[in-house]
């Protein structure tokens, strides 16, 4: 460089236009070159593409492979959050649910456990969708369980295949798997039919056992049913506890494995014989909807109609002609269905009145009407269990529940429980619903009628048992008899059945299974006696459950409880009819199909006939047995003899009538060992699924709860401070749950026509208060009269009188808007004074200081109410109920500042007519930031919400809600 510089200097003295060397001093010179000018010693520049000069440039090969990256899920991520659910396939269908649960519970906190069942056969598919609490747990599950076999202790002896565990965050894979299965099955079936048709055509007689009557069909598959119970989704996760190990599946193991191919093969075979049947059944199965989620709704849809048509209303006993209890039951049924219909016609929420000591006959409708005199009653209905009151307006029921549950009033000298029930028609609108509406409605109605009937049944049971309290003792005495009888009965049944078989000239009927079953039963009955005591012990202490469940609305859970218990007893009935469950199932699909294809009526009637036959068998069996134990039957009319009494005894021990008004813990899923075998459990759970749907609307069901916080430290106490969101709270705090309902109900509510209502009650209340206040007013009057003139005293007395006596009967209670709220306990007409806002009157400066102090102390709610520029009412420490009034964007009250004898008072006036039980609200608005309004509006409430901070969400839930307080 230096040399070059020197050279340039020597070559070109600075005489040129543009010096090639700029800058002075050593190392600071810059050598310039213009337009490729060359100097001596430099080579001539040839302009050319340097890339083409061979070998001079080595070009890196372009990158071809890119590294894969994965991002953790955070706020910026798109798409669904990391999956918390895993789909497990390749499970042995024989593995019991509890063991699966236990096994997969070791990976983390299971939120939901959904074993999939075959929609046609009800058999387990060996596919389970497990939702964990967090992604880590799911990941752990996938890492540790994928490709592994279930442990030796788990699952059947053969060990099963290797599990396949994949993430399935949104259940899409499950859906795809089910769809694939359905497709595959359809294909198989078609193929087989084609093949068999080809085979059948030349040699129809070659079929090993051509079965001429449908009855055979219906009976045969019944004992080939796979052990479904282990795979029925449990609605309430109590199965961890349920001691299914005590019956370590002796009955299950004995059962033939649920090889669906084997089960289906003969069936299809027969279908091909009966052309009409095959035509019908095949499309029905292929059109089986594949639902991956929303299992309850699906199940209820699928199996909904079945109980109503078979197992429930035509209960074996009720069918028997001339049976007294059957007739009575029918009457009651008709009464309750009438009630249901009437309530459905009403369309609004209604109220159910339960008497704490059973329903006394002495209560008349007038009493009930009087009890609800403050509300606009549409109709009063009763069935033998309870009274139902429907109202003319949509929110009356809610308000009535609020007011009347306080226990102040008695209905004809009985204390009652008032339960608000959701409107009849809107019940069971399943959120994740995929079937068309018409179908759904049909199913819903069926469901409801079932539930209603079940309630009726149970209530009948209870009343009868009130009379016969010592029935339990009797039962245990009868036990021995029953066991004897059962052995005999078992023999008889065996004898009976072949007889029938011959009568109908059935072929290929194997009674091996039923025989075995009977034997099992008879041996088990002995065991059951021991179990009875155990189970009573188990049931009486509350099962291990999170405590929050107990805080739920008692009446609602109570009704569900009733239903559940009833279902248990009903399930015992199903045991009898279970001889032909295939019939029932087919007819279910028939019913289902009928909605879709009404043209298949003829087929349907066929099947129903089959069903009747199947039923007849069971009733015949029973009549024989019934003859032997007449005493027993009178005591327990709908008890079945085919089964041990465990379930029955459970009912009694759990629901003594005196407890009906007290809170009962939720225990939806009974422990598995109540049931004798898998099928019982299966049907029981089906029934639970249906029974669960209607009561779910009023209160959130445990399994639909959002995931509760898992305490890392193991206890909530040691957890430190953490915030619980409203959504979480609403799961177990009634007032939060109410919020959603108020939002819904408030929207369509129209303002009632303005009318001035003065109830006798309010008059009386006023009179009472007037009398109370008279004394002190007199004193004040006297004092004032002494100090001032007569006129002043008169004026004051009126005003003061007004303020004191015009106060309304109010009550504070938890509010859906904010902590506490004030509720009207009497009707308040528009313009009437509601309450005075009382508190310390302080100067604004003091208020500012205090406000800061309160904030420091953590008093979150502001009770400062500004009277004028320099005075503020502080109701934080001293005050009256007025301080509890909440804000609403659609308030029913306004605050006015009136001057009484020179003193300014804040008085809350009703802006509209306030109905009984309505929460009193007024529109607070922050005027600190609206100085213009300061002098215009008489109300100045100083809610210090700094505008620059986060918006404070308004929770008033009114239709006009602005969303924020500031």
């Amino acid at each position, binding site marked *: 460089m230096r040399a070059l510089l020197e050279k340039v200097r020597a070559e070109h003295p600075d005489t040129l236009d543009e010096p090639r060397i700029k800058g002075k001093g050593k190392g600071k010179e*810059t050598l310039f*070159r*213009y*337009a*490729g000018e060359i100097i001596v010693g430099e080579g001539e*520049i040839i*302009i*050319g*593409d*340097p*890339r*083409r000069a061979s070998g*001079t*440039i*080595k*070009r*890196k090969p*372009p*990158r*071809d*492979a*890119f*590294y*894969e*990256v*994965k*991002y*953790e899920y*955070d706020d*910026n*991520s*798109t*798409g*669904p959050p990391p*999956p918390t659910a895993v*789909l497990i*396939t*390749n499970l042995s269908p024989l593995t019991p649910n509890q063991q699966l649960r236990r096994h997969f519970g070791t990976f983390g906190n299971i939120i939901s456990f959904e074993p999939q069942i075959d929609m046609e056969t009800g058999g387990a598919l*060996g596919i389970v969708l497990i939702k964990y609490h967090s992604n880590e747990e799911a990941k752990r599950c*996938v*890492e540790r369980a*994928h490709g592994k076999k279930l442990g030796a202790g788990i699952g059947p002896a053969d060990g099963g*295949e290797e599990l*396949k565990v*994949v*993430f399935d*965050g949104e259940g*899409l*894979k499950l*859906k*795809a*798997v089910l*769809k*694939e*299965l359905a497709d*595959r099955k359809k294909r198989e079936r078609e193929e087989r039919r084609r093949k068999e048709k080809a085979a059948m055509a030349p040699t129809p007689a070659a079929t090993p056992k051509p079965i001429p009557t449908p009855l055979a069909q219906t009976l045969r598959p019944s004992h080939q049913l796979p052990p479904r119970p282990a795979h029925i989704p449990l609605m309430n996760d109590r199965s961890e506890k349920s001691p299914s190990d005590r019956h370590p599946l002796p009955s299950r193991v004995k059962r033939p494995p649920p090889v669906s191919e084997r089960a289906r093969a003969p069936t299809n075979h027969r279908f091909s014989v009966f052309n009409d049947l095959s035509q019908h059944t095949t499309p029905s199965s292929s059109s089986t909807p594949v639902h991956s989620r929303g299992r309850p709704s699906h199940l209820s849809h699928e199996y909904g109609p079945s109980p109503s048509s078979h197992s429930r209303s035509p209960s074996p006993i009720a069918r028997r002609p001339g049976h007294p209890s059957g007739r009575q039951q029918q009457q009651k049924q008709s009464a309750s269905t009438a009630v249901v219909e009437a309530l459905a016609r009403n369309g609004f929420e209604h109220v159910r009145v339960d008497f704490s000591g059973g329903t006394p006959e002495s209560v008349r409708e007038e009493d009930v009407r009087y009890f609800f005199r403050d509300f606009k009653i549409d109709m009063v209905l009763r069935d033998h269990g309870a009274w139902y009151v429907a109202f003319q307006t949509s929110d009356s029921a809610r308000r009535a529940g609020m007011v009347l549950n306080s226990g102040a009033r008695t209905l004809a000298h009985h204390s009652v429980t008032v339960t608000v029930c959701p409107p009849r028609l809107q019940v069971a609108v399943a959120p994740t619903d995929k079937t068309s509406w018409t179908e759904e409605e049909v199913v819903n109605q069926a469901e409801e009628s079932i539930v209603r009937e079940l309630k009726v049944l149970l209530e009948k049971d209870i009343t009868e048992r009130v009379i016969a309290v010592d029935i339990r003792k009797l039962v245990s005495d009868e036990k021995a008899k029953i066991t004897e009888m059962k052995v005999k009965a078992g023999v008889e049944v065996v004898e009976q059945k072949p007889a029938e078989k011959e009568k109908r000239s059935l072929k290929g009927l194997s009674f091996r299974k039923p025989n075995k079953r009977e034997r099992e039963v008879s041996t088990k009955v002995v065991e059951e006696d021991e179990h009875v005591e155990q189970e009573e012990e188990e049931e009486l202490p509350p099962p291990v459950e999170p405590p929050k469940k107990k805080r739920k609305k008692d009446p609602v859970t109570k009704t569900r409880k009733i239903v559940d218990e009833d279902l248990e007893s009903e399930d015992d009935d199903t045991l009898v009819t279970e001889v032909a469950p295939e019939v029932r199932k087919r007819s279910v699909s028939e019913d289902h199909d009928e909605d879709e294809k009404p043209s298949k009526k003829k087929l349907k009637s066929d099947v129903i006939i089959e069903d009747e036959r199947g039923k007849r068998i069971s009733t015949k069996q029973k009549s024989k047995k019934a003859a032997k134990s007449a005493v027993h039957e009178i005591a327990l009319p709908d008890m079945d003899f085919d089964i041990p009494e465990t379930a029955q005894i459970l009912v009694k021990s759990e629901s003594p009538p005196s407890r009906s008004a007290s809170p009962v813990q939720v225990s939806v899923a009974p422990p598995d060992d109540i049931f004798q075998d898998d099928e019982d459990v299966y049907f029981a759970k089906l029934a639970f699924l249906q029974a669960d749907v209607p009561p779910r609307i009023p209160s959130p069901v445990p399994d639909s709860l959002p995931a509760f916080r898992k305490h890392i430290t193991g206890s909530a106490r040691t957890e430190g401070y953490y915030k619980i969101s409203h959504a979480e709270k609403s799961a177990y705090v009634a007032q939060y749950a109410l919020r959603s309902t108020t939002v819904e109900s408030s929207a369509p509510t129209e303002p009632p026509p303005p009318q001035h209502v003065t109830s006798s009650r309010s008059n009386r209340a006023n009179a009472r208060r007037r009398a109370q206040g008279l004394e002190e007013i007199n004193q004040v009057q006297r004092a004032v009269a002494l100090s001032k003139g007569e006129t002043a005293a008169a004026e004051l007395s009126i005003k003061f009188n007004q303020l004191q006596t015009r106060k309304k009967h109010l009550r504070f209670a938890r509010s859906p808007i904010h902590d506490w709220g004030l509720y009207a306990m009497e009707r308040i007409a528009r313009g009437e004074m509601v309450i005075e806002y009382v508190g310390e009157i302080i100067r604004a400066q003091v208020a500012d200081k205090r406000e800061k102090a309160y904030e420091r102390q953590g008093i979150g709610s502001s009770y400062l109410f500004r009277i004028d520029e320099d005075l503020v009412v502080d109701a934080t420490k001293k005050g009256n109920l007025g301080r509890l009034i909440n804000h609403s964007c659609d308030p029913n009250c306004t605050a006015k500042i009136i001057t009484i004898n020179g003193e300014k008072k804040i008085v809350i006036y009703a802006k509209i007519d306030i109905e009984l039980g309505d929460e009193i609200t007024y529109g607070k608005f922050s005027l600190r930031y609206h100085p213009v309004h300061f002098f215009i509006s008489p109300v100045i409430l100083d809610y210090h919400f700094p505008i620059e901070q986060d918006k404070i969400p308004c929770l008033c839930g009114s239709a006009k809600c602005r969303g924020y307080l500031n």
Partner: protein
Amino acid sequence: MPPPPNANGNSSASTLQLSNGLMQKLKPAKIYKGAVEPQPPPTPGSHSRSNAGPRHITAIAFDDRGDQVLTASEDETFRLYSCKTGKHLKTLYSKKYGVDLPRFTHKNTTVVHASTKEDDTIRYHSLHDNKYLQYFKGHKQRVVSLEVSPTDDGFMSGSLDKTVRLWDLRVPTCRGLLNLPSTPIVAYDTTGVVFAVAVNNYSRVLLYDQANFDKAPFLTITLEDPTLALVSYPPRPIYMTSLSFSSNGKYLLVGCSGDAHYILDAFEGHLLAKLEGHVGLERRRLDAPQSIDPVKGSSGEEVSWTPDSKYVVGGSLNGRIAIWDMQNLPTRSGPLDLKVPPTRIQPLANIDGHPGPARCVRFNPRLAMMVTAGAELAFWLPDQSADNEEIAKELLRKKSS
């Protein structure tokens, strides 16, 4: 979406080859809504840009290893993100000078960037200690193109003052100066021995030998699109806003502010292809009227090669991301014929992207991820999750066997 069961960190990172299927499955994995500070509410006295809409990210740059991406936005901030974890690492402010066209040097903590305020100095900035290391003074007007040599510490800038300056990071004064008749856009070949200068208004692309750029360019390409004459007469001139060589050096991508980009043969200068199917970024918003003369607009960073030269990814004014397949470009030989219309290539995929314009679209040089930016920043990853039905079949196949 499920990661493979053995996916534990980056240690066992598998590699992907870009394919049509993969490119079509690109999905935004991260969207940074707050990647640009919103404009402060206008104060009564100041009259701000009217109807400009939200502020944008104007340029993005990857470091050499593709681990980090740096955004420069109209809120006068640099924001550094990790491409590996998808996390925002750092925000640096340059309120005094403004930032545009940040380019990583070969060290992943230093960048050079153009200024938008004060003067048109190019600044050499150290990210880790947030200090300026060097100012490169010389340009008299706004710098519109800035490229770092792929092989050494040299870099090159084109400015509205109609000059191209060549710099060295070690020297504050420019190493070379090229006077041009119009606004130049510059690009280095991947070997660093050749650079291209696009001269707007003349529709010429000049290729220089890095060593002898003060002589005449060794190749002058005229970019003339005969198909434009079919649209309007006289044809709307092409306004070139970006220029980039493909990594294999064969092609030259000319990004324009209009509704088409062009692919040139980098050796012969044939016009090979016209990339269509997007809306040019000549305007700032879709509802803004088009000017009569073509302008730069918000164009400049919206189109780029994938590092394997197989695809071109480009943004659009309507926020979509277009992916053009470059694997079967036509070959032309023989003398240049400006009348031969280019092959029109429609995008392989036109993916829904940003709500506003997609101003910056760049594919990571090493990782299988793409970054796009407009009013928000998005990281795109190929969606690896297999089809649910296929998974189902897979699950059941093993089961039945």
